[in-house]
């Protein structure tokens, strides 16, 4: 097993005078096998992003554990160990605009990947160029540019190119397509499948769009209010949804060849 998530819970305490507990993630457990494409589907506030951040060690869980290749990630604390972990488990976030520091050229995001690679004598330029070509970008078109000079799709492809440099064992892609034009989503989605097929990378794909998850996943987990309400292979989720929430979710996805009743 590549990654085991066991009874993960995250509770936020908010408010100064009246302390209130907000349960972001509640008792979430799932496994990720090598070369597996797993989708976490849910609306905003369902806890899917929090789960991703915990796996990426960006925030700490309240309880529960995450085991990566047999090791509890709670024990990974030195910079050296952290770097090794992030080389194996990398992330891509929702907002391709906010993923780049506006003060730096986009090259920086790619160059940063080398901090994680062991060794020092890389031909950085050719590795970067190669990775950019893999994700369908022409290096001369994007290198040396500032983020605001590129489209959302190009920026997100650069982020994926960073994963092509690292070739991690697991990628957490948190809503990577929700801010991308509908017309280019499929192309970017395919890059994740390609990474899995060519480099055996497992993908945890986080989305609110059941349609996207349907085409690429081996398994879909439906999250609602912090818990997993249903899990199964894509066609079963779409064709025979069991949970009340999943039924509504499937119903509310706008289709191209069928109109909603009452509209």
């Amino acid at each position: 097993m590549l990654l085991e998530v066991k009874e993960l819970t995250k509770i936020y305490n908010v408010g100064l005078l009246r302390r209130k507990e907000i349960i972001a993630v509640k008792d979430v457990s799932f496994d990720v096998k090598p070369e597996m494409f797993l989708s976490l589907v849910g609306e905003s506030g369902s806890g899917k992003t929090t789960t991703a951040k915990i796996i990426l060690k960006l925030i700490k869980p309240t309880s529960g554990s995450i085991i990566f290749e047999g090791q509890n990630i709670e024990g990974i604390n030195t910079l050296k160990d952290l770097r090794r972990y992030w080389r194996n488990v990398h992330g891509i976030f929702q907002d391709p605009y906010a993923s780049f520091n506006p003060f730096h050229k986009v090259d920086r995001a790619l160059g940063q990947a080398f901090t994680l690679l062991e060794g020092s004598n890389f031909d950085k330029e050719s590795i970067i160029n190669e990775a950019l070509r893999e994700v369908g970008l022409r290096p001369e078109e994007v290198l040396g540019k500032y983020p605001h000079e590129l489209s959302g799709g190009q920026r997100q492809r650069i982020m994926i190119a960073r994963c092509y440099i690292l070739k991690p064992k697991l990628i957490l892609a948190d809503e990577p397509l929700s801010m991308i034009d509908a017309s280019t989503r499929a192309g970017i989605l395919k890059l994740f499948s390609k990474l899995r097929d060519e480099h055996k990378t497992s993908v945890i794909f986080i989305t609110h769009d059941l349609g996207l998850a349907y085409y690429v996943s081996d398994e879909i987990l439906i999250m609602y209010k912090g818990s997993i309400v249903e899990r199964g292979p894509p066609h079963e989720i779409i064709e025979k949804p069991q949970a009340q929430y999943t039924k509504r979710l499937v119903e509310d996805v706008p289709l191209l060849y069928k109109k909603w009743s009452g509209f």
Partner: protein
Amino acid sequence: MIPRIIKDLFKIKKLDISLGIFLGLMLLSLLGSIIYPVDPTSVVGPPERPPSSAYPLGTDNRGRDVLAQLIGGIKNSLYIGVIAALISLGIGVIIGAISGYKGGLTDSSLMLMTDVVLVLPSILIMMLIAAYLKERNPIFVSIIIGVTSWPWVARAVRAQMMSLKAREFVYMSRIAGLRDIKIIIEDLLPNMASYIFMAFVLLMSGAMIAEAGLSMIGLGVTKGISLGIILYWAQLFESVRRGLWWWFVPPGACLVALASSLLLMSTALDEYFSPRLKGG
């Protein structure tokens, strides 16, 4: 990207006006002593003369030239303002940045310290330190003002830091295994540059007023001149009651102009950088 911002900034009337006033007074103080080379501390004529062709702004009670004093005073007040602002900014940014980025225990202890300094009446501290020092040059005064006026900067920087560190590009740098200090310097601080600059402007205006305040109660610089010192002497010799307007109006007006042009500048920048206020 940068020249575009500057071009846009100059379109803001408030900023143009305030910058005009501020730069005008600054130039007056820098070039004034060349064009009008009169020593502000030596006696040049009869005392308490109203403005005339020989003394464009008259003389004070000991026959010193008020215009020369004004030129020197603006220069020193600006100097104290800049140095004090830099000191507070330095302390405030460092404490705020570490506190906001690290969180947890570091944050709590640094903020406790900040709050202690924040609630202590700073004028009282300034008075105590100032009274303890027998000789006070502009640098001392700047330090006294600087070390007492940073807490709000630390608080503000911390708040900015906490919101910035949840931005995705910071996550990207974190999962690339960058050191914290590198993330703070490369990712976080540049993105609050406009904010830090505004804080600097506000601190400077506050420091110049604080300098005048210290001087007015006799705890200002002991050597040399400043706007506060001119006002101090003018007040000591009852210039207002005796109608010696040329003695207290120009330094008072200059102080107000400097401080308010800086305040106006920061408002203009604030409106530009926080779009919610734009066209509100």
